[in-house]
């Protein structure tokens, strides 16, 4: 299995498009800049919802109002990050395969994907009972802390890819 994945990574790395991104003067840097700017859209907006549930910001605004406001921005950010991130991976796939920071980042991404799945199928189902509370119930606060920690870990691990 790992040989198969490594083989796919090498194919991407050797492909014409992957080579183009890697060897072009500006392509990689421009895609990387877009990837970094999209952090604001994705992590910046979801962090505000997390901080609201923790009672740190905008306590007077209901959780559902904040959620409805940030979700389109968060999802746009996710789409941009996913596409730009995949392009960066395409260019560096063979190098990324064995990179410990990259592997940690993938695991954290998997975990951060599970978090909203659990959140939306449990405590968020009854959000109308607690949306106006200044401090959300502990399950929502736990989800918020998990989200903030995982996203921070993803940003740090992502930055560290370049150092291995």
């Amino acid at each position, binding site marked *: 299995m790992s040989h198969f994945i490594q083989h796919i990574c090498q194919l991407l790395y050797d492909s014409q498009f992957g080579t183009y991104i890697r060897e072009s003067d500006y392509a990689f840097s421009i895609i990387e800049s877009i990837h970094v*700017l999209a*952090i604001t859209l994705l992590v910046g907006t979801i962090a505000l919802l997390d901080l609201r549930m923790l009672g740190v910001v905008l306590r007077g*605004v209901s959780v559902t109002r904040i959620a409805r406001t940030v979700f389109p921005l968060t999802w746009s950010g996710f789409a941009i990050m996913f596409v730009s991130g995949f392009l960066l991976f395409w260019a560096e796939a063979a190098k990324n395969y064995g990179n410990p920071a990259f592997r940690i980042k993938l695991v954290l991404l998997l975990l951060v994907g599970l978090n909203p799945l659990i959140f939306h199928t449990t405590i968020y189902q009854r959000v109308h009972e607690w949306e106006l509370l200044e401090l959300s119930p502990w399950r929502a606060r736990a989800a918020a802390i998990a989200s903030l920690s995982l996203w921070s870990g993803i940003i740090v691990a992502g930055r560290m890819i370049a150092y291995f």
Partner: protein
Amino acid sequence: MLSWFVALSHSWLSQYMQQSRWGFAVVEAVHLLGLAVLGGVVLIVDLRLLGLILKTESARNIAHGLSRTLLASLAIMLLTGIALTSEEALKCYHSPAFRWKMLLLAAALLFYFTFHRAALLRTDKYQANLWSRLAGAVSLTLWLGVGVAGRAIGLL
């Protein structure tokens, strides 16, 4: 101004940032975490000024509710930014991208504490108007410029 950068390049901070194996990487990562939060706050406040989101909430309340988070993330970015600059202070001093970034940062901060604040106070009573939309658009452009110029420091 040059003497400040010379002093920074001779400081213990600069020594540490140059010699430590993980110092620069860790500070850079924290700088990015600050960017995520600062960018999120700026985006929400400016989209409200543009009249695109949270239209029934007062713009002033939103800005007030996020102001401490904004100042905290700004402080983190400034402190980590000084540490990052110290590593190559003289190179930064001569870098066009760095100079643009500082210029745009100064403009963004000046704008934030003057016109932007005035627009927020006005929009409390009124829906988005030309004044508030202009303030939101200028603010977003300036902050985006700070980010783009910042990214360019490592490339040019």
